[in-house]
């Protein structure tokens, strides 16, 4: 089929399906926690605004979560269909971690999701809240295990190799808490929280622009902007530490991120440029002298290895890694700007008055998704040409399948994903555009019904029809 090999198609297929998949978890992880917070506030303060916000987001959550589940099942089987040799070899180490993910996370999410979404009239408020909490905890467990798996592939540790050429576990603690895992876990969970915060902020801002008196929208906007201003700087700090750790374990990835081909003492920080892997040089570079070394080694004269010091067959594609990393950082800057702006307005007591801030927040809605996707592409493409870094090459990982099979299924995946998940995103956007808390009439009637909550838990309903 054309001139593409089965392995390239398999890589494209994995990248395509996992990229679609991660969009939903990134949002569900944050939203599940946010829902738990909202329901907790409602139970505590008995202010119906929180209940309205909870019901508003719950429906949206249901749609997104469903898409996360079905796209995730594809991922679980894709290791076998497309990366059979990798599965055979790495299975004894990463398989059990994924097994723990299923047992401790997926079942927990699924077991309580039904109660959370449909059980409001069937169980008491405490039990319902417990279900919401379990769903949130489940998403975090899931992130824990799958990121441990991914981190082990980035920085393998605690393993031996047996006669059959398989990786076998030696020390589970070292496997699970491999060197890059703590950084990746924190960075990704914060990324999910920021992603959600900016979606919530954008939706709230959109409703504030239409009616700045809308109570649920005000609460949502305020909460989202607190997250923006508090979490973004933390995320930047964690990202910096993450990068220092990567320098230790995957120096070629850092060289590609920085666009450095030569070894440096006192390396510049490259702001922009076009890395050219053929010519082995960075074209049109705009750089700040010495800052690169300062950031990565905390010394003006620190030494950094360039890509040329690695054999050509061990280098990742610099162009992709260089740019996706910069886009991620740029998104971080945008988030920080919006956060600081909101803090300034809040101090003036004009948080809900500034229409330009609201417009900016609407525009910043997708920044989290963009940063997450770019971050992952940096991480994954930067790991190339290895699947298990330094130990198993991507070319040695692939299944014995032919290009027609993979190509056809890739094509079908692309069509089906765009149509079905496209519709799903459309439905989510439509739900987001509904006024939170409904019109005033609906709001008062829900107030009336809500007052009976503790006695008869029949007041929360699955809004939307």
């Amino acid at each position, binding site marked *: 089929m054309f001139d593409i090999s089965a392995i390239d198609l398999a890589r494209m297929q994995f990248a395509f399906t996992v990229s679609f998949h991660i969009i939903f978890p990134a949002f569900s992880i944050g939203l599940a926690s946010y829902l738990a917070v909202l329901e907790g506030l409602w139970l505590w303060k008995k202010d119906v605004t929180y209940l309205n916000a909870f019901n508003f987001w719950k429906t949206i959550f*249901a749609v997104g979560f469903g898409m996360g589940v079905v796209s995730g099942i594809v991922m679980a089987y894709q290791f076998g*269909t497309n990366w059979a040799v990798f599965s*055979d070899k790495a299975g*004894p180490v990463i398989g059990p971690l994924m*097994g723990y993910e299923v047992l401790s996370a997926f079942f927990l999410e699924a077991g309580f999701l*039904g109660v959370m979404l*449909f059980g409001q009239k069937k169980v008491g408020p405490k039990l319902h809240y417990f279900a919401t909490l379990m769903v949130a905890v489940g998403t975090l467990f899931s992130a824990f295990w799958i990121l441990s798996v991914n981190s082990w592939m980035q920085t393998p540790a605690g393993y031996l190799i047996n006669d059959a050429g*398989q990786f076998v576990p030696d020390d589970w603690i070292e496997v699970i808490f491999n060197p890059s895992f703590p950084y990746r876990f924190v960075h990704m969970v914060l990324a999910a929280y920021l992603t959600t915060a900016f979606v919530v902020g954008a939706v709230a801002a959109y409703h504030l622009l239409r009616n700045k008196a809308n109570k649920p929208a005000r609460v949502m906007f305020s909460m989202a902007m607190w997250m923006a201003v508090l979490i973004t700087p933390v995320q930047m700090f964690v990202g910096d530490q993450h990068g220092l750790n990567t320098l230790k374990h995957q120096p070629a990835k850092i060289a590609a991120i920085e666009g450095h081909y030569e070894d440096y003492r006192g390396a510049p920080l490259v702001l922009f440029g076009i890395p050219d892997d053929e010519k082995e040089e960075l074209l049109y570079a705009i750089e700040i002298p010495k800052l690169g070394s300062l950031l990565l080694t905390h010394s003006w004269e620190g030494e950094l290895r360039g890509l040329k010091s690695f054999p050509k067959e061990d280098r990742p594609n610099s162009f992709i890694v260089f740019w996706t990393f910069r886009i991620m950082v740029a998104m971080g800057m945008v988030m920080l700007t919006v956060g600081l702006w909101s803090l300034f307005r809040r101090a003036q007591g004009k948080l809900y008055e500034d229409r330009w801030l609201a417009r900016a927040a609407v525009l910043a809605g997708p920044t989290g998704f963009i940063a997450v996707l770019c971050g992952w592409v940096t991480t994954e493409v930067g790991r190339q040409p290895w699947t298990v870094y330094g130990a198993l090459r991507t070319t040695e990982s692939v299944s014995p399948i032919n290009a027609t099979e993979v190509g056809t299924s890739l094509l079908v995946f692309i069509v089906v994903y765009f149509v079905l998940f496209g519709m*799903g995103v459309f439905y989510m956007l439509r739900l987001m555009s509904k006024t939170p808390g409904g019109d005033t009439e609906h709001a008062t009637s829900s107030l009336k019904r809500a007052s009976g909550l503790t006695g008869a838990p029949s007041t929360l309903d699955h809004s939307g029809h």
Partner: protein
Amino acid sequence: MEFDLPLIWAAIIAFAILAYVALDGFDLGVGIMFPFVSEKTDHRDMMMNSVAPIWDGNETWLVLGGGGLFAVFPLAYAVVMPALYAPIIAMLLGLIFRGVAFEFRWRASQKNRIWWDRSFAFGSILATFAQGVCLGALIQGIHVVDRSYAGGSFDWLSPFSVLTGVALIVGYTLLGSTWLVMKTEGDLQIIARKFAQVSGILILALIGAVSLATPFLHPDYFARWFEGPSLIFSILVPVLLAICAGILFIGLRRNQEIRPFLAAHGIFILCYIGIGITFYPYMVPPSLTIWAAAAPDKSLFFLLVGTLVLVPMILAYTIHAYWVFRGKVDTSGGYH
């Protein structure tokens, strides 16, 4: 400590797959019946609501089956998935088509809802058929050379695997219809009962056909069924099957609500035991045994600890979820 860890794990995986078939079987069956139920009444709403709160949990057993295989029998996973490439992808796509419909159906306009009904039915039928084909192809055996699949792209396709594919569609219809007999009332229940009667008769015929064909696929299978100690099973299984079928049909005739559902599951479990006998001691017939496919004991043990602690908890909260949504479904009770 001389536990036969691979054997224990084979039993656990077998349990996970059985749990999947028994649980997701009925909610897939509900989807298979969708096109045959009028869209003008609220029957389709009820059918979907009867499974909406639990389908995700049911499907998770499939992830455990696949994920578990990856974890403890990585070689089997690495051989089976490429061998069954097309039916596996078809199953995954089918699960997507039906999985999204659970929510999308309620988000679409009245006019467009029909498309998600179609998506739900199409996905359910496709996923079921693909699972049946996978089963048939596994029973036929998979060609392994040097730790990897060595057959062609279409080895899975044969009259036998198509037969098992069709049989599973009928079988899940039986599970789904007896579920609806239990969960619904009135007209819908009457329709479900008819479905159960027809699919009950058909499934017995198909089980007969598959059982007759299986021993001739491979001389080993013949020996396993008709020689040695398992001969007892060869006699016992059909007898028990007849008893279950009796309970099913009598229950349906007498308008009993729970027994037909249990009897239908009895039939499934017996078939499953039969397949187990056919397979043993192979993980992937005809060459990969349970022990050859297993990961090292250290991997098996590590996950076993968690399994022994977590699976009872999973069973407990799964039962709780079913308990919360017990009784007949109605269109008001907190569903969509």
